Structure formats: structure tokens, C-alpha cells
């Protein structure tokens, strides 16, 4: 997506105006954008049918009353990694056909929690009060971590707090090239910049408004050259005609642009979705082919590829990635012990096992921490 984020409307919920982040954001939004103030939280502001229109050109600034740091809900009956979500906003200006956020019917617009600064102190307290625990924290679960950074400047807000925490890492997960904020920051420690990757075929057809895979990797290269630790996420892996060649092209580009030594982890997860999302996807993206595969109901109620297909895809990806470098911190997102074993050739066995594995990656890359 272009760095000129197409915001044509800013909605200020009641109470949002008293935060300094609101004033800073208002200074950065395009001058031509309409400003609507004093909006009640329940007012959809004219977006009656979110299933069709996610209102991605409106920025909605609000005082978020809930907890901003929470454990990733993960999923039941599969192995999860024990990630922590720093919930700084919801929705994203990109429009990937597979995005789960499409199912959040009652939440149109790009929502930014402007009370983040007020909450950050208590979040840091939680981290500091549990020194034996390594907090792997990310902002990219309910939105792209950097897509709106040119307007919100989260980097400047978050990096000083997290780069000084020795029992935490902050992962900024993105599909964009919005790295100017990162590059202008002097802070590197405990910060991971991650890119979500796919085959060029999937990227160009299904990840609407997102930059090409090459552009993402070029942005990653610049960050790496400037000293940032990188992560990558092949999630969702999507079966499509020629998928093996497609994903190999992406790995070839990684080989060309990225030094594998500076990667903390690479996750993989095949496409999965709640059953109702299928109909939303069909409605919002009638041309998509992501639903063509053989999806069956998983143990968590989500639709996933037939196990044999998942194993085949993971095994293929692992063999390619292993050829590139032997120590990339590969892991599977929301998979079973059996699939780990068959697809990866080994298994973390349990969610605790995966959590330990990733914590060890943190220690390996950022150094030993003793409370």
C-alpha cells in the first residue's frame, strides 16, 4: 500500500479528544479528511453493512476501556505458542481476502486506541512483575503493526518502553513498507520486525492493497541492515495451482535479500477460518480462489485443509527453508503434535513445549536474561 494512506474521514469518539495521541494523529491525517467529533461508541457512523463495507478509509479514534495486553486466544485442541497481544487498535487498511477481521461485523473503520499512552504504564508493570516469564508481545494480531504507523507513530511510542525490558520482546508484524519510523529510531534491542509472506501468486491476487512480496523483503532487508532482528510468517499458506513453485519464488527472494542469521523465527500455518467467514469472503471477494481447497472441520471448529495436505505443505516448506539455513526458528501455528511430527520431522509436543522453544529463540538472539 502507498504511504499516502487514503484516509478521508476521521471519527472521534466521545472522550478521545483529551489524549495527546489524538492531537498528534490529527496533525498527520490528510488535511482534506472530514472530522466527525463526539461520536458515541455504539454509533456505526453510517456504516450499516460491515459485511460489505469495512469503512477502511475512516480512522476512528477511541478511548479503549478493555485490557490492552492479553494472551493470544490461540485455539483449542492444537498447539499454540503463548503469545501476548498488545491490542492497540483494530482493523487494517489492507484488504486481504482471507482476513479474519472481516468477521468482526460490529467494528467498521480503522480503530486506534488513543489511550495507549495512559495504559502503557500498567502494561509494563505486568511485565516487570513477572521477571521469570519471557513476554513475546505483538501488535499485529488485530491489525497490521505498521500500516498506519506513518499516521499514529506507534514506533516512537512503544520502542522506548519495550527495548529496555529484558524479559520481553515486541514484534511488529506487517505486510507494508512503512519502516521510516523504525529506521529513524535509535532503538533495536528486544524489537522484532516481522513480515507476513506468501507466494507472489497469492500476494498479488488475495492481499489487496498490500505491497508485493519483493517490496516487503526489500523493506525487511533495509531493517536488517539497520540492525533489526527479523521474523517471517508464512501464514496463511494457501494451496493453489503451482503452489510449490510459487513459494519457492518467495524463498528465492528471501535468499537474495535477507541474511538468515538475523532471523529469530519463521512461522507457518495453513489457511483456516471460522465456518461463517466463508460466506463473508464470498460476498466481499467474489473472485477469490482461496476457498477452492479441501477444507474440513478441525478439532477447534475452524475449517482447515485436510491433514495430509497440511503435512505436505509444511514438509515442502521446511525442506526449502532447511536448504536455505538450518537454524531459522521454524514453527507451526495452531497445529497438532501429529502434524508437527509428520510435517516438520520433530515436535514440540505441547503448547508449553512451543513456548519454551520460542523463548529459547529469544534468549539465543537477544542474549541471556537473568532476573
Amino acid at each position, binding site marked *: 500500500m502507498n504511504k499516502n494512506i487514503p484516509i478521508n474521514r476521521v471519527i472521534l469518539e466521545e472522550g478521545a479528544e483529551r489524549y495527546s495521541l489524538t492531537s498528534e494523529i490529527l496533525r498527520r491525517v490528510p488535511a482534506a479528511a472530514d472530522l466527525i467529533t463526539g461520536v458515541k461508541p455504539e454509533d456505526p457512523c453510517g456504516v*450499516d453493512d460491515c459485511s460489505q463495507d469495512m469503512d477502511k478509509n475512516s480512522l476512528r479514534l477511541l478511548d479503549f476501556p478493555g485490557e490492552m495486553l492479553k494472551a493470544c486466544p490461540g485455539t483449542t485442541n492444537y498447539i499454540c505458542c503463548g503469545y501476548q497481544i498488545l491490542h492497540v487498535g483494530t482493523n487494517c487498511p489492507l484488504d486481504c481476502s482471507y482476513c479474519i477481521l472481516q468477521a468482526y461485523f460490529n467494528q467498521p473503520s480503522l480503530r486506534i486506541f488513543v489511550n495507549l499512552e495512559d495504559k502503557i504504564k500498567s502494561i509494563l508493570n505486568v511485565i516487570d512483575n513477572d521477571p521469570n516469564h519471557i513476554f513475546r508481545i505483538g501488535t499485529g494480531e488485530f491489525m497490521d503493526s505498521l500500516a498506519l504507523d506513518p499516521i499514529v507513530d506507534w514506533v516512537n511510542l512503544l520502542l522506548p518502553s519495550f527495548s529496555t525490558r529484558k524479559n520481553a520482546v515486541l514484534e511488529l508484524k506487517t505486510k507494508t513498507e512503512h519502516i521510516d519510523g523504525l529506521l529513524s529510531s535509535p532503538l533495536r534491542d528486544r524489537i522484532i520486525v516481522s513480515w507476513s509472506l506468501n507466494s507472489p501468486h497469492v500476494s498479488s491476487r488475495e492481499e489487496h492493497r498490500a505491497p508485493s512480496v519483493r517490496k516487503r523483503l526489500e523493506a525487511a532487508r533495509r531493517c536488517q541492515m539497520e540492525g533489526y532482528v527479523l521474523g517471517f510468517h508464512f501464514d496463511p499458506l494457501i494451496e493453489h495451482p503451482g503452489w510449490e513453485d510459487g513459494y519457492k519464488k518467495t524463498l528465492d527472494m528471501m535468499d537474495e535479500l535477507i541474511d538468515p542469521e538475523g532471523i529469530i523465527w519463521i512461522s507457518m500455518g495453513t489457511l483456516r477460518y471460522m465456518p461463517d467467514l466463508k460466506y463473508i469472503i*464470498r460476498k466481499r471477494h467474489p473472485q477469490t480462489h482461496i*476457498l477452492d481447497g*479441501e477444507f474440513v472441520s478441525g*478439532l477447534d471448529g475452524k475449517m482447515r485443509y485436510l*491433514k*495430509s495436505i497440511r503435512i505436505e505443505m509444511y514438509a515442502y516448506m521446511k525442506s526449502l527453508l532447511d536448504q536455505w539455513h538450518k537454524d531459522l526458528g521454524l514453527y507451526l501455528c495452531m497445529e497438532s503434535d501429529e502434524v508437527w511430527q509428520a510435517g516438520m520431522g520433530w515436535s514440540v509436543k505441547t503448547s508449553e513445549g512451543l513456548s519454551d522453544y520460542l523463548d529459547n529463540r529469544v534468549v539465543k538472539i537477544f542474549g541471556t536474561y537473568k532476573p
Partner: protein
Amino acid sequence: MRNYLTGCNRMDAKQIRNYETATVALDQVEMGPGPFCMSFAFDQESLRHSISRIGLLNQPFLAKGQGDGKMHIVAGYRRILVCKSLGMKAVRSAILHHDAFPPLDCLRIALYDNLATRKLNDVEKGMILSRLLIHTDQDELLQHYMPLLGLPGRRSMLDYFLRLEALDPETKTSIALGRLSPQSVRLLFDLSQAEQKSLAGWIDKLMLNANYQKQFIDFIIDISIRDGKSISDLLAEPLFTQGSEKGSVNPPQRAKEILDHLRTRRFPRLVQAERAFQRALSHLTLPKGVRIRQPSNFEGPGYSMEISFKDGPGLLQKIKALQSAHDLTLIGIQGRQKQ
């Protein structure tokens, strides 16, 4: 005589008073389903029987049109159709003048008349809400009229009923007669009228229950998109046009045949794995009355076994037989390999 509704803002607080009555020639009445009509897919027989025996008991309400001088039926559409079909030339009617009864009031009269006398089908509810929406806003529909129709005042529900109006007439008939489930109807919304008609026609023909309807539509749409083949082309394939391979079969048998075929086409690898598993099982020396099942969709971690037995000794005998069936050790391995 002046006709008017008393009360103020809300229709349900108003009452009709002092309306004029007159004998109206039926050729002066617009017979098509006009702007106030709320009837769809109805059975005229009992009404015909009643009117032919004892005459018209309740007079229809007609509105005097502004332009063509024709009368529009406000309430009593079915009664007038029956009277006409019985050869009656005129009926005594209540006449509503447009200056005293604007269209929204006429719609309300029609609505309450219908609510008081019969159960409305979903298509009729959609007609009512669509017609009301011309004269009032969505919030009023959600808060006032949907509860009147026995519907929850949710926007998604309103959207559903409003969209029914645009469906193909034969599809609407299937809905009105309760042959198409709301879940299936939602899947048809974004298809062309021809596609809706074809799919609804097959659902009718195969007498599919709600669960099978959804499967059927899902399979057809998924295959159509995946294979780049139109729904019409798919439904013109021999599977549908040439009848059953087994000769004469009843609708449920035919339904199973078609759904099995579509499932195999939609999930070729899953079906292949299921068949391979069944083949492998058939080679095992299982005692009679013992069944082994694969995990659902091969997703779960374990297989299950069911043993049917008459009594304790019978059970013991089967357990002993299972203990000596050494080829059972192949089950997990075979399942994984064949999948």
C-alpha cells in the same frame, strides 16, 4: 362522508372511522398485486368454498387511485380474486380516499387486516417490509414493524427479508411453502435469478432437508468457482439430466446419489482417503460385530471401535479374537499412509 384515521403519530394508536362504502364494479379494480398487496403463494380453495356458499362476509378495502381512476386493493386481495373467479361483477367495498388515507396508512390497514386473520409466510413478510420501507425508515421497521411480524428487530434479519423481494418467483414460492430453509436462501441471494430458480428447483425435486440443502448449494457454488464452470452448466451435466444410474429410485435415494457424487468431486482427496481406509479395514480379520471408525475427517488423534455383543461371554470371546488379530497393528500406520 369524510374518512379519517384518529390518533396521532403511531399507526397502532389510530383507528379507521367513518369510511365510505360502495358497490364497486370489479372491472374498476386493478387486479395485479398492487402497492398494498401482502399475499403470495396462497391457497384460494377454502375461501372459494366459503364465498360460493354464503357470499362475501367481510368487505375489501379499496383505495381510489389518483391517475387512472382505477381502484387499488388495500385489503382483501384474495377475496376479490376469488369473487372475480366466481363470476361476480361487483362487490360491496370500503373506499379509502387518498387525501385522507396516504399510502402508509393504507399499508398499515392492509397489515393489520392480514395480521388479524392469518399467518404470513416469509415472502409476505418481505413484501410488507419492502413496501413499508418506501414510506418509512429502517429504524421504524426494526423497532415497530418487525416485532409486529413476529421477527427480531435485527438489521441482518431486516436485510434478509428485504432481499427476498428480488428473488426469482419460483424460488419465492419454495420459500413461502417452507421448502427452502432461510440458511439456504441466504446462499442463493448473490446468484442470478436463473441460477436461483435451477437450484431451488433441484432442492424441491430432491426433497432435501435444511442440512442437505446447504450442502447441495455449497457444493455446487464451490465447484462452479473452483472449476470455472457456470452453475447452469453444472446442472446441465449428465448427473442431473440423465437420471439415476440405478434406474428407478425415489427422491431420497436420488438425493443421496447426487450429494455423494458432488462430495466426491468437491473433496477428491478426502473421499479417496476414506475409501482407502475402508479398503484397508476390509482386509483386517475383525470379529463379527466389531466396527472401527476413522477420526472425523481424519483430523482427530484417535480411531474408535464399536463392539456389538449379546452377553458377557460373547464380549470376552470378541476381545480374545481382537487380541489375536495381529494385523490390527497396521491400523494407525495404514490410516496415516493412505490419507
